[in-house]
């Protein structure tokens, strides 16, 4: 369990890196509680982020799924991380 939790944290940090770069947001603002709306992340930004995640982790993230429901950065990271872990296993 501990290993998995650590993986998730590591993964979350790497995902934040991508969000900061592709979404062109300030790192200090990209907290787990920050809303997607407050960071002015639009649907095309999410597309850019998901595409970069696919490249980085060599996974395919389908367009349906919980990504559309995500309100906060934390939700988005959870959705993406869960998908990557599922794909990798």
């Amino acid at each position, binding site marked *: 369990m501990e290993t998995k939790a650590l993986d998730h944290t590591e993964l979350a940090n790497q995902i934040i890196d991508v969000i900061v770069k592709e979404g062109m947001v300030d790192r200090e603002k990209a907290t787990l509680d920050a809303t997607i709306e407050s960071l002015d992340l*639009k*649907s*095309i930004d999410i*597309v850019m982020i*998901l*595409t970069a995640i696919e490249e980085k982790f060599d996974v*395919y993230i*389908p*367009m*349906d799924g919980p990504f*559309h429901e995500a309100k906060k950065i934390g939700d988005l990271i959870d959705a993406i991380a869960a998908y990557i872990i599922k794909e990798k296993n």
Partner: protein
Amino acid sequence: MADSRRIVVTGMGAVSAAGVGAAALWEAARDGRSCVGETHFIRPYRGRIRISAQVQDFDPAAYLTSSVLPFCDPVTQYLLVAADEAIAQAGLTSAKPMGPRTATIIGTGVGGMHTLENGLHLTLVEQGRPDPLTVPRLIPSACPSMLSIRYGSMGPCFAVASACSSATQAIGIGLHLIRSGLVDRAIVGGTEDCVTNSAMLAWEALRVLTPDSCRPFSKGRNGMILGAGSAVFILEEAELARARGAEALVEIAGYGTSADAKDPVRPDAQGAAACMRNALADASIDPSEIDYVNAHGTGTTANDATESEALGIVFGDQLAKLPVSSTKPIHGHALGAAGALELVVTIGAVRENVAPPTINWREADAKCPVDAVPNEARPMPIRTALTNSFAFGGINASLIVRRAFAA
């Protein structure tokens, strides 16, 4: 706003995934028969999504002569075949030039996508020598130009490139040119075929293609299906059409357009609502007079929710009783030709008094509070109908079709 010049459709034709002919397209839409299938690619395809509503089993040589064909990308082939059908139905002929009082306006998002892709592959990958007709074949304006040459239509001739609103704008501009008195007749419509390796990959990268099934306005929808094809209409001033004994299929009563002026890809409900209101004002009618809406209804999460919101702004409490269907799961999203294919469907709905269904619909989505005519066609009186097209870049266009008055 509308003056005494009324504009009627005297002929229409289509080439689509349903086959050759406007009737084939309308019947597929009315009967809820999807034309989506496995895409045939001319080169190995590495995308994940392989389904589309492609034009298949179309033999251009069966319709077009060897003197015309070398100048025709598939989009021009479909267009000429659709136009020949429209011209014949209108009781016109290519033997007599249409002359300077006929306009030719065709919408296409990209133009000769196949020529473009094949040319790039040949020159960049194979290091080959380009076909000398590459340029005249791929230019978007080849579409209206080849029509003007075929029918001798010497009035205004141009292509409209507004992505998914191209055809609807082309038809609307034709309507207004006739109404203004600048011309008496217009050959209008749209054509597109972006079902190619690179274009399909590009659409997949945007994450708007469904991997399984297009289900507009339904809960669980996950994207659109690419389509292809062409549809052409002969618009004429009603009195002149009547004078030559041509039957009016329907009247095109109004055209509206607007720009969101907000976002390159995200649709905006206010912009879409303004567009529909412009069309209603252009037709000088009240929203309550609309009996049926053929929606843009792409099946993406964003479009259908935004279009529903826009319909709510325009129709208010009446929306609950207004049938709004999308036929895109049947003929696909034909991009620059979409508005033309859907005008064929809307005209069919008005002429046969049947609202075609939104197939693949599963359950209501709170974000899409519309009566989507789920899964089964609905016979009902349809005197006046609205059809919408909304494009990337925030370009919106709507047309209003009205039952032709008795001659």
